[in-house]
């Protein structure tokens, strides 16, 4: 059985969440059920922190910081987040910052990261994604790679191999040393795998994006998402990728840094045939962003890994009509955690369970 088959048709729900000394949250002991959960509270009340703790639990990464130590509540030395996931069997995830280092457990034991990542697929839309469409290419590369890793955690190894080989090559070029050949070869191997994964992912996410857009009923201009690889070749093979990388060797030696490869890939987003950077309003970009989140969730659902959605400040920049339309796309989701500081715009979310966050304290609304 493949990684994908084994996971098919499993409903995964976060059924219990507890956190200690995490950010500004009061210690939390929460049992969210299936369905939509609206977390309402003013700015700074801990809404984002609560979503962050779930994201961290599922992915071992924060969407706000690369330093998990930043998540420790002021005045404390460590934090713990523990969660239980029900997928027919119960799995217990734990992440934290303990004795100045990362801490992670799966069912009370240390387990490989890829096993941890398989437990609770998440798709998030947060403040960190605000500039996804109009910001620097690195954000879009991260978007694709996160999507790929959520589908198949083992892709992490390929990404790590590329990153390490690139780091090695960077040093060689910077210090004007010889023997770059073997590093280019290792790079080309990882690069061709990454390029295939990214191209395939972008094709599929475009299809699902169109499906989500049509489901929303919004009349949007045609949106095109195109993978723009740094090494733009028709047939992605290790040999072709290596040949392209090697053809840059002289220029790379002149400049003292790597000039081609997946670390320079981008995604072009056309909105009615024009670059989104110039034509989209903040509201339109928000709609597109949320539909993209829905699209990547639908992809995970297609491989039997229905995600839990984390939508932070979901309503900002959206008028009620758009909010209602976009939110409808998530209505079939198994579990959605939505935060907002305006309870009055959520009249349409009739089935949602409402929670109140005030000064880090979570209570039923």
């Amino acid at each position, binding site marked *: 059985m493949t990684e994908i088959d084994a996971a098919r048709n499993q409903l995964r729900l976060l059924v219990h969440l507890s956190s200690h000394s995490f950010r500004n949250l009061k210690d939390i002991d929460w049992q969210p059920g299936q369905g939509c959960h609206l977390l309402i509270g003013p700015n700074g009340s801990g809404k984002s922190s609560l979503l962050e703790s779930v994201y961290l639990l599922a992915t071992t990464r924060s969407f706000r910081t690369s330093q998990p130590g930043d998540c420790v509540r002021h005045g404390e030395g460590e934090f713990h987040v523990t969660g239980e996931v029900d997928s027919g069997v119960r799995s217990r995830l734990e992440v934290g910052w303990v004795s100045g280092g990362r801490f992670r457990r799966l069912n009370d034991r240390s387990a490989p990261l890829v096993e941890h990542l398989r437990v609770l697929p998440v798709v998030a839309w947060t403040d960190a994604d605000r500039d996804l469409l109009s910001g620097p290419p690195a954000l879009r590369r991260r978007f694709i790679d996160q999507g790929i890793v959520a589908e198949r955690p083992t892709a992490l190894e390929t990404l790590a191999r590329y990153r390490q080989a690139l*780091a090695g090559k960077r040093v*060689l070029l910077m210090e004007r040393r010889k*023997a770059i050949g073997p590093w280019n070869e290792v790079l080309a191997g990882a690069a061709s795998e990454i390029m295939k994964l990214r191209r395939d992912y972008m094709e599929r996410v475009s299809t699902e994006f169109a499906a989500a857009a049509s489901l929303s009923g919004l009349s949007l201009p045609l949106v095109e998402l195109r993978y723009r690889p740094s090494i733009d070749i028709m047939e992605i093979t290790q040999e072709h990728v290596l040949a392209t990388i090697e053809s840059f060797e002289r220029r790379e030696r002149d400049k003292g840094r790597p000039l081609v490869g997946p670390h320079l890939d981008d995604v072009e987003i056309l909105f009615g045939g024009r670059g989104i950077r110039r034509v989209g309003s903040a509201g339109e970009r928000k709609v597109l962003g949320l539909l993209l989140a829905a699209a990547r969730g639908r992809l995970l659902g297609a491989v039997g890994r229905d995600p839990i959605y984390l939508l932070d400040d979901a309503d900002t920049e959206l008028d009620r009509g758009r909010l209602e339309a976009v939110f409808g796309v998530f209505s079939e989701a198994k579990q959605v955690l939505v935060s907002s500081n305006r309870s009055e715009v959520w009249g349409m979310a009739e089935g949602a369970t409402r929670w109140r966050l005030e000064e880090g304290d979570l209570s039923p609304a």
Partner: protein
Amino acid sequence: MPDPLSRLVGEFSRLPGIGPKTATRLVHHLLKVSDADARALAESILEVKEKLFHCCRCNGITDIDPCSICTDEQRDKTQICVVEEPFNIQPIERTREFHGRYHVLMGALSPQRGIGPEQLRISGLLERLDGITEVILATNPDVEGEATALYLARLLKPRDIEVTRLAFGMPVGGDIEYTDEVTLARSLAGRRAI
């Protein structure tokens, strides 16, 4: 902390894989053992340093020079297996799949740590190629080990020698040291031309 204590904790902390916490625990354990046991430990450290050294041919660890593998006439003189570290030899020996000789590079290429081809024992390998028909590259399946294998493959290409690489079924980023015998035996048996 009294001086001798912090000194020993400091010495342990310098060992690979041992942080200050573990070092402190080890020292407190040693405080409880008998004088004889403590002396035995200290002496065995000195003994290793005094009696063992690197083989002049393969760089493996030995107490006679050349080592018993290099001088064993029963072993296949046409095959040489290249590994990164002396402690990579034993796991391969345990598989009983390989009957040739070894060559230890004493590391792997690592631009970040300033290890280039000149820092590795490569010239010694080139001097040992007379009569060799196959070189098996058994560097670790991580990025540095891969790059080292590819470097050597390029270097050996002009010579009339078959160059093969272990077919690692183990996860990339693994380490020969931690690979079980069965997996390693399979990697050896399934080695491929590079």
